């Protein structure tokens, strides 16, 4: 039972992290209609910038400054890259961000080397928050969840309770009308893109210290984020939240299950047969943990092609 509790908590924290990245992606998609392939690269940049800054200005300073730099990178990408190719259509924008993500990964390899860097949580944060059934639960996980929660309360309040928020929402909903009313819509787009990038950067700066910081982290997380938005329904913040938590929990739970399909067949007395067939049937659930979200995505596509909470069409 303790194992279940710890796994669920780990899964929720991982899910919140996924949500932090996928929320920016969904927001940008809703606004510009373009899927930013480089979004997960911003997550990676956040981790690497924080790693570099940590030695100079300390951990907390790095966590604060790294997202700002990543946000600036995002602004540059929107202003000088995406806006240039906007005239050629969405597929072209998608390809450009794909190229950028490829380039960012290669640049990271150039500057930091093609191996994980030694970015760790500081000693002062490396303690147990509480114990579950004799096992210490790291405080840093609680902190990661807390940062994600705090960020979202803030963004939600900003979007729904302030004047800036109402302009942003109107620019997303009816960009031409907002422009006709005298709002600088390109500036709003640039701002939201920057904030989305900074959010991903913050997620990276916080999570990079706990998980590993390596040049592949963008692709690994990026694919998971795409699964989240397909499962949740693109453009739906609520769907992204639901799907993130769901996928986080499922991944975390399946790592701990030491069973395979042959155990299922054993219920019908067919274990011998299943083990004889081998392949997928004898594969342990724990070793396929990374693939279960993809299977979930295919299932969702079969039964609800527009995602859990996505709008039809």
């Amino acid at each position, binding site marked *: 039972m303790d194992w279940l509790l710890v796994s669920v908590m780990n899964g929720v924290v991982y899910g919140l992290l996924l949500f932090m990245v996928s929320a920016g992606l969904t927001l940008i998609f809703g606004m510009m209609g373009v899927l930013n392939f480089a979004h997960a690269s911003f997550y990676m940049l956040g981790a690497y910038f924080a790693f570099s800054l940590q030695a100079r200005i300390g951990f907390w300073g790095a966590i604060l400054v790294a997202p700002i730099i990543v946000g600036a990178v995002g602004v540059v990408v929107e202003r000088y890259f995406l806006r240039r190719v906007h005239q050629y259509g969405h597929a*072209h924008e998608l390809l450009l961000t794909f190229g*950028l993500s*490829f380039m960012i990964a290669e640049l990271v390899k150039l500057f930091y080397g093609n191996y994980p860097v030694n970015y760790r949580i500081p000693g002062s944060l490396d303690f147990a928050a509480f114990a579950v059934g004799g096992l210490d639960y790291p405080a840093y996980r609680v902190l990661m969840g807390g940062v994600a929660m705090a960020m979202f309360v803030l963004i939600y309040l900003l979007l729904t309770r302030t004047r800036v928020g109402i302009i942003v929402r109107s620019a997303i909903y009816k960009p031409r009308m907002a422009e006709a009313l005298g709002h600088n819509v390109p500036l709003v787009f640039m701002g939201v893109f920057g904030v989305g990038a900074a959010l991903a950067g913050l997620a990276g700066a916080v999570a990079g210290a706990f998980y590993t910081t390596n040049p592949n982290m963008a692709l690994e997380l990026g694919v998971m984020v795409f699964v989240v938005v397909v499962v949740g329904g693109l453009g739906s913040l609520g769907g992204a939240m639901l799907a993130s938590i769901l996928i986080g929990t499922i991944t975390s739970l399946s790592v701990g299950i030491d069973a395979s399909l042959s155990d299922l067949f054993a219920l019908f007395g067919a274990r011998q047969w299943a083990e004889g067939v081998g392949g997928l049937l004898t594969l342990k659930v724990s070793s396929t943990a990374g693939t279960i979200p993809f299977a979930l995505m295919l299932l969702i*596509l079969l039964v609800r092609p527009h995602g859990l909470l996505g709008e039809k069409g």
Partner: protein
Amino acid sequence: MKPVHILLLGIVLALLALPSFLTPGLVNAAIQMLIAALFASAYYLLCGQAGMLSFGHAAYFGMGAFATIHAMNAIGGTGLLPTPLMPLAGAIGGGAFGFFAGYFSTKRTGTYFAMITLAIAELVHALAPHLKALFGGEAGVSATRMPAWGFTFGSTNEVYYLTLAWVALCLTLLYLYTRTPLGRLTLGLRENTHRLRFLGYNTHGLAICVFVVSAMFSGVAGGLLVVSNEAANYVLFDAHLSASVVLNTYIGGVRVFLGPILGASLMTFFGYAVSDLTQSWLLYQGALFVLVMMYMPNGLAGLFGQIGQWRSRFGLAALIPFVLLALGAGLLVGGGGAFAIEMLQRFLSQDYQALASANAAGTWPPIRLFKHDWSPAAPGTWLVPATLLTAGAGLAVLARQWLRRLVQREESNRAAAEASVPGDAA
């Protein structure tokens, strides 16, 4: 005979004569180029003609490769088919998996489609190392080419001719496909899916069909790779292979049939040629792709077409200075960029940093690059790429101005011509 036909005939003849001029290493590179060209062309069918961006095409390439290697190992190593027909197994493997993946991914279009293809490829990549019986785990699966039809397939040259024959056949088939009614419908899928559905076509079925054809030819390419390498590993499913086919196809140009073929063979050749000189080839490839996307969306093939168009508009004599300026700009920017990247790569490498920290005086030892020693601390070292880049940018500006002047002159000529025709103005 049209000039295009003469050009194609010339290329085929050159390719046939190639092995007698090249070293075995270069023949091997030529095989890789042919395979990359076929893969890019198969990919172009999906992304260029049907307008469906797939970011996970390595999955079908890899499935074709593994189907071929198991076919080669079947029946106690004698093979299911004679060696020259082996890529057929690749076609079946790639096509079958393409049907499965295509059924799911074509349920959605546009951005969703792109994400689903990526996720399926990652699913395969994550699952493959665990399925040892099928994909051989970390070590992979190996096989041997069996002699057949009077050939031993022992030498690289024989493999080259086999690859060339298959690639030529497949490219012809892919080209002929574009001329069939199905090929026309494929274009319709890109241009206006709603209208196709309105006209009574089953667009989901059609999309699956195109997907399967593309996956099948990707599978042939994978099969050819296996026939050439006699081994396959789950690394074939790596995201890097999916990325490189996207990059190659778009660098070559996605508006013309020959574009992806050009892009893939050029990029593979450069990748082979510079693999000893630089460790940052992928960075150059990515940078080139971003530049192509931003400044010439129709790729290299589109660039040639554009120059041809300008030639007939402005005349060759007026265009030559522009081409020279643009070439100069490209060379300077490329040189400056390459210098900066190579210098940084050497400066930041682990070996050099270890050497520098061992150096007690705190000075930076010089770095050897382009047959000179450069000191990283001297401003002159970094001035070189900066000067090259600035000069290149300057030339680019000049080239643009020249082009603008040409357009203006043409317009004023036209205005003068219209003014000189009486009655036309009324």
